[in-house]
């Protein structure tokens, strides 16, 4: 059977059912969050740019922020019949792309994104199974709901699976 790949853009999210795959390209300081149910073979992926929407006053894209994206992604999966308590997570991203910038006065956005995502997962009692975060490389990730494997590709180090 042909496997279709669902593509997720920057500040975007979507869901997929096996045998199809789901993928997002070019994660830098952004974090890709995969939530999945390994029995139903259903997964969701969000490409999160920023940690926190609470100070944003205007209307905004909810897939962009860790706090709003994760809750919406859970809801999308529950709509597909997933039991929230069965959800597991894998995450990748949160790199520090520019190592030589001069302003070190605040914690870098990649690190803040990772912390925010992990906090949200904890708050929703979702088990974090594996992660490939931090570092200085951009990542493209692809999740296979059939095997629950997350493929992580970087320019310098090739492909790893977590």
């Amino acid at each position, binding site marked *: 059977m042909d496997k279709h790949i669902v593509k997720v853009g*920057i500040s975007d999210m979507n869901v997929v059912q096996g045998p199809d795959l789901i993928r997002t390209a070019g994660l*830098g300081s952004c974090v890709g969050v995969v939530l999945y149910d390994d029995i139903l073979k259903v997964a969701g992926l969000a490409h999160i740019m920023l940690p926190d929407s609470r100070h944003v006053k205007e209307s905004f*894209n909810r897939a962009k922020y860790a706090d709003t994206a994760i809750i919406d992604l859970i809801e999308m999966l529950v709509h597909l019949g997933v039991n929230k308590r069965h959800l597991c997570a894998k995450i990748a991203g949160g790199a520090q792309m520019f190592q030589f910038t001069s302003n070190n006065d605040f914690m870098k956005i990649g690190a803040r994104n990772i912390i925010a995502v992990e906090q949200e997962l904890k708050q929703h009692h979702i088990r974090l199974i594996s992660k490939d975060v931090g570092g200085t490389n951009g990542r493209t990730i692809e999740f296979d709901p059939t095997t629950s494997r997350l493929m992580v590709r970087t320019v310098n180090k090739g492909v790893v699976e977590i």
Partner: protein
Amino acid sequence: MTKNKTNLDNLKFDAIHLDVLREIGNIGAANSATALSHLVKKRIEMQLPSVKVTDINEAVEEIGGPERVVVQLLLQIKGDIQGSLFFLLSVDDTKTLLGYLLDEPSIEIESLNFLESELMRSTLYEIGNILCGSYLTALADLTSLHIYPSLPAVCVDMLGATMTSGLLEEGYQMESVLIIETMLQEQAHSSVMKGNFLLVPDNDSIQPLFQALGVPLHG
């Protein structure tokens, strides 16, 4: 003073506004092209700039897609207006450019880890300083605004990763982004070297920018 948040989606640009933005791209890139042609002793041409208000996904898609591997030089703009200035080169063109500058016609860069070589790294920083610095000098002269460039940052990686991270480091929040793009190219006998400038003013700097250019925006 309360900060007036500018929502790009609500702004109405007239033809004149787009024209002055194009003029910024023209003058900035022309200044850079001159600097670059002195540096490499080649003739550098530039294409007409394009001005777009776009979503970041579209912006990345137009420059080659999120997974295109690019060498990205980035400067932050500080002072009366704020924003980011990117200069993007392909890996091959960077090799060519480094070859010209280091006077080694067939420069060997085995891996993409340019930045691990002190010589490559400092040469790239110097290119960033000269190209982006001359762009911003032209912009400052044109607008009479006080503009200070940050030290350049250099990164070799996937375009999607480098661009979003470059914007995010400076607290990019907005949904849409204003991009003034100009392409420089060197026409050699066999090859064409191309580089893209992307000037991305922060949303809050768009009104002051138009003010300084004498065409205030009524949004």
